[in-house]
């Protein structure tokens, strides 16, 4: 701005002051920006059930969501969500395909991902894990690969992305079925073994990544009304909306002090 004499000096001072004010508030505005639409969450197994509900609830916060599924072309509900919300991106991913996990991590190289949610999981057919009757070993191996090996691969591949982010959180959807201390009747031996193994490896990961500022959690959503629990009467099951609200609430409260914990959906600790 041009001016002459005292008016010009005042104007220049005002401009400078406004400039400084603008810069000072930029940090706060950036923080606001980070607090909403720049926060990014990656969710595996997002085509249905808990994963889909995660997408819905995180997108409702205005966050960016990378929603992965093995067969996005069949994921009608997920596609509808993404069509209505440009901040949702669908990526095709089978978490047991480790080459594909690496490729997806490479695709997002340099992009911060605040929260990685290892949600994809399988139970293995209940009828194929009855000791002495129907133990199906390929089922055991598939359950271990999806529930134990793949989450570790995803965590490792997306470590740099979490590290580059503001929130730095790794969330693993575990299960109270993984609590060895809670076993009081025998069932689902493959699924339980897989969740106990997941708990062990993620407790180790928690220690390993603490120095990078990344917090790790294992959370039990409780018995939820999804396809995974289709064989159980609905009265025993919690609505997905409630389960995911709990998961997200606990995730919001994760810190480096409580990292490596095994949470029930109530927020109380579960015994290992």
């Amino acid at each position, binding site marked *: 701005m041009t001016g002459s004499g005292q008016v010009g000096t005042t104007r220049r001072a005002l401009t400078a002051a406004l400039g400084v004010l603008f810069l000072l508030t930029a940090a706060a505005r950036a923080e606001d920006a980070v607090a909403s639409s720049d926060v990014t969450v990656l969710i595996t197994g997002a085509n249905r059930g808990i994963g889909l509900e995660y997408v819905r609830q995180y997108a409702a916060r205005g966050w960016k969501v990378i929603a992965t599924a093995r067969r996005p072309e069949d994921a009608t509900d997920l596609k509808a969500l993404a069509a209505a919300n440009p901040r949702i991106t669908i990526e095709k991913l089978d978490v047991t395909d480790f080459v594909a996990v690496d490729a997806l991590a490479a695709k997002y190289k340099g992009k911060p991902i605040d929260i990685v949610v290892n949600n994809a999981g399988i139970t293995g057919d209940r009828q194929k894990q009855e000791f002495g009757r129907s*133990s199906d070993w390929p089922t055991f191996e598939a359950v271990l690969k999806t529930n134990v090996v793949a989450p*570790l691969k995803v965590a490792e591949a997306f470590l740099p992305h979490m590290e580059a982010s503001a929130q730095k959180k790794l969330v693993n959807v575990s299960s109270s079925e993984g609590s*060895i201390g809670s*076993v009081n009747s025998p069932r689902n*031996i493959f699924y*339980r073994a897989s969740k106990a193994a*997941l*708990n062990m490896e993620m407790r180790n*990961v928690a*220690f390993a990544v603490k120095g990078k500022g990344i917090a790790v959690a294992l959370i039990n959503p409780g018995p939820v009304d999804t396809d995974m629990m289709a064989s159980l009467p609905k009265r025993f099951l919690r609505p997905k909306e409630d389960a995911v609200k709990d998961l997200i609430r606990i995730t919001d409260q994760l810190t480096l002090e409580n990292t490596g914990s095994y949470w029930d959906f109530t927020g109380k600790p579960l015994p290992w």
Partner: protein
Amino acid sequence: MGDGRHRDDDGTKLARREFLAGAVGLAATGVLTPEAAPAQAPAATAEEGARPTVLITGSNRGIGLEFAKRYAERDWRVIATCRDPDGADALKELAGRSRNVVLERLDVVDHPGIDALAAKYAGQPIDVLLNNAGIGGGGDNQTFGKLRYDVYAGVLKVNAEGPIKMCEAFLKNVEASRQKKMMTVSSNQGSIAGVKVPMLYWYRSSKSAVNMIMANLALQLRNRGIIVGLVTPGPTDTDFMAGLPKRMLRPVEDAVRDMMREIDRFDISMTGQFLGFKGEILPW
């Protein structure tokens, strides 16, 4: 060691630096310092004409070989299995001088082989099924940031799947016996609560998996009088721990003596317990 092939390349051993950190942690807890042995439970005595039988997996060296020797000394019948009996010099020598020991080829990831051995011993009581065979996965394969995923499946298959398959295949044999024990050599490395330093992702999670499996089997088989237990040797001086300073390791004789005491002590009221080598209950 002349008692069998060194299967270094399949990740049987754990690398020195990895275990050192954990062993230092253990030393800090006083676990490795010498102290008075706990009270000895009486050894199981063989009734007249009915020697107990023990089937041991991975008996060609280390802890498994020591188990075979000590049970043979007790005048038990020992079915000593391993992947390569022809190469198991020390085990062959033991079988040569002890009428109690019979050698059988068995790889716990070979399910048809397990079924065939169970068929061979159909109708014969087995008092103690001892799931000892286990692999470490190799310390170099389990560093976060450089994890070797191709190794993981093998570790799970031997350490978690093998014992459950063995228990299933020899269920009737154990049920037909007097002692009715299914024992698995686990590890304090399988204690999730005990994790302090992160490492050995494959090995530790495979032991947590087998702990969970056995906790379930204990409940499932309780009504049949079968006792399911998890015993642990502590860090022991065998090929498994090669590369670690000996002063951090327990002699294999002590490790096996302790585990045999716990196996003897196990009764149905203890089924499903996860025990340290002093007989203490370990946290999951």
